[in-house]
């Protein structure tokens, strides 16, 4: 039940359409899963064969007992009885061996399959363009990679191998019963439909009950998580009582939902024992009557065998009634997996993509470039030339498209129209790995891996020596930061946690970029406040980093403007000014406005 997917309900016709669409994806999804299973078909066949042996061994034992009672014990045949004992031992040895190997191989097949699915899914997902990540939550991707993939293993271990041995057992037991005594077999088998109905009824009730439990416990999770996250506010405002009351209410709701499920949970075992007792009663009653009647096919051993067989009947019956659930779960999961696998990788290298033997010089040209995001035109027919080694500061009002512009250069998004050229080659012609090895983008939000500071810097160049890393850290003005850490560069980032300020994280990102040393550097300056000391280091590092590169900085600080050769003013998705700071300040009304706001503020 864990990890099953709950699609939100859709009403009426929409349901019909949704179902149709699902059936179509369902087929493809199942095909996909089948292809993974098929890869291990010899192992799977072996497992299936062994499990069939298990089923047979399981069926032989009661029959041996029957022969022992009717043919040997009742006739006083001691030698025959010993033979039976030996046969018994052989059967159980076979049972043990084949059961062990059968089940172990099935587990292995299952685990190997999900490892493959997970790897392929991960490889695909990691190659998907950034737009996929902006519209999908990490948690959602993660749940497909773990929960949904793990669900598939159930399909192998419980769905396929058990199903076969269950079906074999049920068929085999029915046949043996018919052979032993057809009339009694019919009587016993008549109870099967009732058992199935009972089990599936309880099952359905439980699923429903657990559905509502999941719902309320989801609510509870959310509430508790929120309150724990806001614990400081709760405490600061002294709102403990109110909070405890709210929780008590949700806690009570959960309790009530649980009680509803209790009935079903408590019913399963009594139901199973009772149905098995009904069968026993029927066997004793009808079997006994047949003996009284003098039926030649009815002896005491047969009665015993029937009782024993019906007991072996129930577990497979129950399992089979649950197989549908396993299948449904796996089908839903495989659909969710398939959905990602079938999402096309839109940003990738062309077949004959260009990889130059040298680094790009860093000449950037926009020719009538347009870009739309969600139907919003963000960049509109933009023409622009940024010569190599120029430092360009990009400024402009909120939403003008500055961030988008720099992302287009790194080909994190593909332009909708026009052409974007690096060294006079359209970036879509360039091999994407080559392209990214030539561009460095330092974003506002610095992501640090849960590793040492050293390894985080080294991320820019995995084969860099320790000396190179130390030099890069120095160039990024990290000395002051490192001085405060006893372990220096070997400090684990995770242990620092919130102690690392935004500014300090930025410095680490700079060191990373310095080490990577790409010909084009794109920088999205952080807007958030940084304390004055760190600010100075950032500025110093910035001057170190921009040397001899094509640099584009989305600027928020005045000092950055002073650093730039040219300032690019972006408004409404197009160029509204592109010149030196002084020239723009003299001639450009929009630039003056932007600038005045800054200074007027500083004067007060």
């Amino acid at each position, binding site marked *: 039940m864990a990890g099953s997917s709950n699609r939100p309900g859709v009403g009426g016709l929409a349901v019909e359409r949704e179902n149709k669409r699902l059936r179509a994806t369902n087929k493809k999804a199942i095909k996909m899963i089948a292809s993974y299973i098929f890869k291990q078909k010899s192992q799977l066949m072996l497992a299936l064969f062994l499990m069939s042996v298990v089923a047979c061994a399981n069926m032989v034992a009661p029959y041996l007992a029957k022969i022992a009672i009717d043919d040997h014990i009742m006739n006083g045949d001691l030698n025959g009885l010993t033979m039976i004992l030996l046969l018994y031992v052989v059967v159980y040895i076979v049972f043990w061996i084949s059961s062990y190997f059968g089940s172990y191989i099935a587990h292995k097949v299952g685990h190997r399959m999900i490892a493959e699915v997970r790897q392929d899914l991960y490889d695909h997902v*990691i190659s998907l363009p950034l737009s996929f*990540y902006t519209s999908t939550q990490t*948690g959602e991707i993660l749940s497909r990679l*773990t929960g949904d993939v793990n669900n598939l293993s159930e399909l192998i271990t419980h769905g396929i191998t058990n199903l076969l041995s269950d079906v074999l057992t049920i068929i085999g037991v029915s046949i043996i019963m018919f052979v032993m005594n057809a009339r009694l077999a019919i009587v016993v088998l008549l109870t099967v439909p009732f058992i199935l109905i009972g089990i599936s009824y309880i099952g359905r009730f439980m699923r429903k009950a657990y559905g509502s439990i999941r719902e309320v416990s989801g609510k509870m999770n959310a509430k508790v998580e929120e309150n724990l*996250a806001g614990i400081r506010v709760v405490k600061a405002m002294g709102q403990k009582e109110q909070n405890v009351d709210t929780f008590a209410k949700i806690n009570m709701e959960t309790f009530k939902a649980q009680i509803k499920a209790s009935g079903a949970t*408590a019913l399963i075992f009594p139901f199973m024992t009772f149905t098995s007792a009904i069968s026993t009663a029927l066997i004793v009653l009808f079997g*006994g009557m047949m003996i009284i009647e003098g039926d030649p096919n009815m002896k005491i051993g047969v009665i015993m065998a029937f009782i024993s067989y019906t007991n072996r009947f129930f577990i497979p019956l129950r399992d089979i009634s649950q197989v549908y659930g396993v299948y449904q779960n796996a089908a839903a999961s495989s659909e969710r997996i398939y959905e990602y696998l079938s999402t096309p990788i839109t940003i990738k290298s062309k077949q004959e993509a260009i990889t130059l033997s040298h680094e790009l010089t860093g000449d950037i040209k926009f020719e009538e470039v347009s870009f739309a995001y969600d139907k919003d035109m963000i960049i509109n027919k933009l023409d622009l030339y940024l010569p190599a080694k120029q430092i360009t500061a990009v400024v402009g009002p909120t939403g003008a498209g500055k961030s988008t512009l720099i992302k287009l250069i790194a080909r994190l998004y593909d332009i909708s129209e026009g052409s974007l050229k690096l060294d006079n080659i359209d970036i879509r012609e360039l091999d994407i790995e080559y392209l990214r090895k030539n561009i460095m983008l330092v974003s*506002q939000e610095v992501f640090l891996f849960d590793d040492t500071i050293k390894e985080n810097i080294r991320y820019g160049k995995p084969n860099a020596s320790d000396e190179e890393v130390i030099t890069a850290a120095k160039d990024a003005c990290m000395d002051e930061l490192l001085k405060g850490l006893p372990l220096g560069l070997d400090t684990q980032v995770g242990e620092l*946690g919130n102690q690392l300020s935004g500014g300090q994280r930025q410095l680490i990102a700079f060191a990373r970029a310095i080490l990577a040393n790409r010909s084009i550097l794109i920088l999205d300056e952080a807007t958030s406040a940084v*304390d004055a000391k760190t600010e100075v280091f950032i500025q110093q590092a910035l001057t170190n980093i921009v040397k001899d590169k094509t640099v584009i900085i989305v600027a928020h600080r005045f000092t950055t403007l002073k650093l730039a050769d040219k300032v690019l003013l972006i408004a409404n998705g197009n160029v509204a000014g592109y010149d030196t700071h002084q020239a723009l300040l003299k001639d450009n009304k929009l630039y003056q406005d932007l600038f005045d706001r800054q200074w007027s503020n500083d004067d007060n």
Partner: protein
Amino acid sequence: MNDRDNSKVKLNNPNKPKGKLWPIFSRLFKYMLKYKRSLILIIVGFVISAFLSLTPAMVVKIALDNFLVKDKLNYLIISGVAILFFALLQAIIDFMTRYHAEVNGQKVIYNIRKDVYSHLMDLSFAYYDNVKTGDILSRITSDAETLQTFLGFASVTIVSNMLFVLGVLFVMLFWSVELSILYLVFVPFIIFGIVRYAFSLRPANSRLRMILGKLNVALQEQLQAILTIKIFGSEKRSRAKATKVNDSYMKAGFITGKIVSFWMPYVFVFIGLSTALILWYGGHKVISGSVSIGVLSGFMTYMTMMMRPVRQTGMMINQAFVAAAAAERIFEVLDTMPTIKDSENAIPLTAVKGKVEYKDVYFAYDRQRPVLQGVSFKVEPGQMIAIIGPTGVGKSTMINLLLRFYDPIKGDILIDEHNIKDYTIASLRANIGVVLQQVFLFNASIAENIAFAKPDSTIEEIKTAAKLAQIDDYIMTLPDGYQTQIGERGMKLSGGQRQRIAIARTLLLDPPMLILDEPTASVDSITDESIMTAIANLTKGRTVFMIAHRLWTLKSADRILVLEKGMIIQNGTHEELISIPGRYQEIFTLQNNTEMFEIDDGKIGERNGGF
């Protein structure tokens, strides 16, 4: 606390109780003892139902021995009906008992959850500094659920199975001591199998879970780093990392599979062999006439009936271990004592004037790193104090002490000439309003968020507060106005809007003292005048402590404390400090040079995902 920390999976072995099992279970038992009558009923119910579940085989035996052999149809019918009757009776009693046990288990969990939650609210900040929200969350939710499954189902099943097996043994001994011995000979093997299964599955399963946790953490980190990965073109490296954990998970899965595959059939084999031996030896006895055919059949029937309970018990014992680990984690929370609580003679803080004094205050989060080292200053009622200093110098710590989020390790803090430890914590905090850098809004309506500290406020009061906080105009532009639901953690609002809601919240509370911890830091634009107006309205007539980087806030302060290395190194007004050489002058010149060029609030960035 940031999100990345919250969601990180705890890597400690989640299935293994650290301490001894017995104290954990006895403590759980104490919770159950609250429902003594139910507990007795449950035990009686299980004894009866275990006894009744023995009856079908007994009737079969009697039927075979007496009625069948002696050809009496009526007795046959009676025995059929008897089986049905007893079985039905057993089913009903069993159902009722199990239902009762389930409900009881849930009551216990309900109480435990209530206790844990209420206890969590009492725990000090020091506790929250050292734990992850996700971890506490899992204790109150999934650990409690695990425990409930155990209390309501697994424990009950173990008990009823044991009763059944004991009952079988009793009847068998009564029927034939010799044959029972054949069964008893195998019992140690069977028990060994069950125990070995449970004990070897436990570490294997917990290893599997631990690796799954690692897999989660590793994949999550890579996914969160997607932008970095793409920028560096390091997809291959990322893949290799994923492959490594993925493979180790697969291998751990193999080991679990091996254990399950080996021990599950093992138990069956021994039951089977014991059955065979009974059949063989019993057969001899039947032939020699010392044992009836009915007794032999009875034995055979019981052996078949034992398969399910025996197999189940192994699984349930495994469950018991998992539950013990879960219970231990829950009790761990309950056993953590709040370090900060009301002193015995605490009095409520009322009619506050707002005079504050720090007297030689020392504080450290851990011994190696002292944070405050002898901070002393006085604040007169109605004064506004600005605190500045580099990141990590202890500015926030200093004001946290005033709220008694932590207690100083040395020195005293006085409000209106009395030590704050003499006041009740609730009244102390009620008199100090707090607006933090990161505004936390609850997933509720705007009105509810503003009225958070005073839930019984009228809408007029809320509106007045919102007006003073300069947020009323914006709220009125929303279609649902004050009833607009704020998305998860206030994501739909900008930093400035959230900040103003927090200000309204504090205005409504109308506290005589106020703490503002970098209230403009997460606001993108200092040109946002409404924030300044809101803050000005808020600080009017109160004793205010404000941590700030921005110039204009420093200028409006009555006094500025410059903090460095855990001490106050400068103390004066802006005019005073700017005119004398010192740290303040240095900082001020630095800041003037690097004042932000504020024109962007990264709105596009937000939509495009953390850029």
